[in-house]
């Protein structure tokens, strides 16, 4: 873990241009941000502001038109598909609004998924998945399928899945969007605690300004540009 580095994530002059029906759309315009390890950060902005694009570029599932993204000091924009897959597997975790658990697998197997592509033994995988799920209060839910879990529980399984490979950066796309207030608050509470406990950078995209008061840094984005950055 790159605790010696001041920033775990650096976005340098990133622009993203989409072509839609022959018209070029600037989704991001010269965006630069730096995020520290152990921070719980938020990206907020209205629809179409470019916050999702930024999120995808941070997650290395989309490439910037220009500029560079460094995660743990590694430049990501020139990696090919398999390199990126491996990089994501080691350094990144994802939490989605719709949880996106694999429906056929129970909670524990879902958490084990990211470890399957590596060389982690079956026993070790199980141990780590179980420990995380217990930590997130799902000790009684290990063998349950997603459709047997509540939304809040599913999202916690997703958080465990994002955490299991001890990533540098967790990206959460509207993680409370499908949850009631209580479950949503719980998820935020977990994010806050996890970022400190595990020294992991968590970046959450949301348009819920209520929940961002818990965040260490709130990046406001509008029309593809950073409007302002608030450090709490």
């Amino acid at each position, binding site marked *: 873990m790159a605790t010696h580095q001041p920033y775990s994530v650096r976005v340098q002059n990133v622009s993203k241009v989409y072509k839609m029906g022959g018209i070029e759309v600037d989704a991001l315009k010269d965006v630069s941000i730096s995020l520290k390890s152990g921070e719980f950060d938020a990206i907020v902005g209205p629809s179409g502001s470019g916050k999702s694009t930024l999120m995808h570029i941070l997650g290395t599932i989309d490439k910037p038109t220009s500029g560079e993204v460094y995660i743990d000091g590694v430049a990501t924009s020139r990696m090919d598909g398999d390199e990126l*897959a491996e990089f994501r*597997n080691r350094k990144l975790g994802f939490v989605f609004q719709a949880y996106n658990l694999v429906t056929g697998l129970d909670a524990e197997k879902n958490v084990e998924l990211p470890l399957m592509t590596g060389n982690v033994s079956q026993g070790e995988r199980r141990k780590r998945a179980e420990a995380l799920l217990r930590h997130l209060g799902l000790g009684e839910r290990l063998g349950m399928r997603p459709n047997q879990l509540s939304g809040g529980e599913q999202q916690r399984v997703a958080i465990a899945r994002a955490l299991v490979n001890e990533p540098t950066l967790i990206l959460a796309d509207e993680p409370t969007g499908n949850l009631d207030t209580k479950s949503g608050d719980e998820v935020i509470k977990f994010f806050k605690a996890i970022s400190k406990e595990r020294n992991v950078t968590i970046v959450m995209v949301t348009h819920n300004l209520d929940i961002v008061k818990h965040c260490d840094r709130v990046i406001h984005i509008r029309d593809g540009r950073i409007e302002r950055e608030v450090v709490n």
Partner: protein
Amino acid sequence: MDLKDIFWLSYNDLSQKKVRTALTILMVVIGIAAIVALTSFTSGISNSITGELESLGPTSIIVGSSTQLGFTQGDVNEMEALPNVTSVTALITGAGTFYAGNQNTSVTVVGISSSGLAQLLGGNVTLIQGSAYTDTIAPEAVIGYDVAFPSSAAGQQTVTTGQSAALKLSGASRNASEITVPVIGILASHGTSLIPIDSAVFVSVQAAGVLLHKTSYNEMVVTADNLSSVNATAALITTIFGSSARVLTTAQLLSTASSIIGSITLLLAVIAGISLFVAAIGIMNIMLMSVMERTHEIGVLKAIGFKNRHVMLVFMLQALIIGFMGGVIGIAAGAGTAYGLVGLSSLASGPSGVQGSSSAGVSSSPTFAASGYRSGSRFESAPGGGGAVFAGGPTSSSASSSGISIKPAFPITTILLALLIAMGVSVVAGLYPAWRASRMEPIDALREL
């Protein structure tokens, strides 16, 4: 990534969609069952027919007279003198009806020397009652098992040795009256054979000449000393007799039979192939649908670090599992169907089993019209009355009791090949959907959320 994990992911997804998976497997099952049933059925037929023909001996050359004159003892001696010939068995044959008890049985009357009879029966004359005849003019008969125990008498013995029975010869006899022949021996059941041994009445050549009013033989079985000399010897015999004899080797019979069977097999294989092709399209269709449905899931898997080849493998393994299961079930279903086909065809052709259809197939080949006298000959043969030994002709209903029985054949190679085809077809059908899945960009898969 562990293949075990990939397999597990594949299997898990299939087991989630039980009905869909079952239907996909069913498509493979039908195709494979068709292949297995048809090939095992036809190779069963092929085995029986070639078995029958081979029982004649691979070095046998059948020489049938195509004139009214037949073969003289001189001809037989000439054959015996040929190089590479080890033995010649000459036969006089005719058709008749055998009366014993209250039963009448259609029989083939065969005049053959006692040593020739032994040779025809594979070396030994096995009798359940009585003794064999000697080569005298006395009309003593050794009868086939089914003549003594006709199926019309429900297996009851109608005649014992020492008794006499009436024999009415069709056509050949000038007086067309019944002849009384003493039965001196009853042969053990010989089982299936192209020569209707079980329904034949054997007498000495001398006796047959008298009974059938023939002064010459109408068939000879010439045995060559080894396989490599068969064709040369057959050619030599053809040269000697010219158009007055039809010369056939077992190899020729075999090749004719196998070419007929070959074309049937090809036709059936094409039908089975079409059903497999349809199965392949079905698998591809269902897998493409599955890939589309799992777009998000594939996106998530790729986001958390699954590489293209991992995703590809997950889907390829699904295809392989479908193929394997379809193959295994299909082979079992095909085996069942093959036995069903045998049952069905025996229903269709009466109690004689598949013999009817197979002998019809074979006798359509001209090789089996090897002998027999034409009607209107100076021997006054009735139409179809010649009753040549080697023609399991339609008039010889008695022949059916010693008909060919078919057992579907399931060589291990067929089973393995079917399994391989099942998995191969599935994998080929799964290639494109799996490739589509592997090429999905995580961003496109996730953007649809």
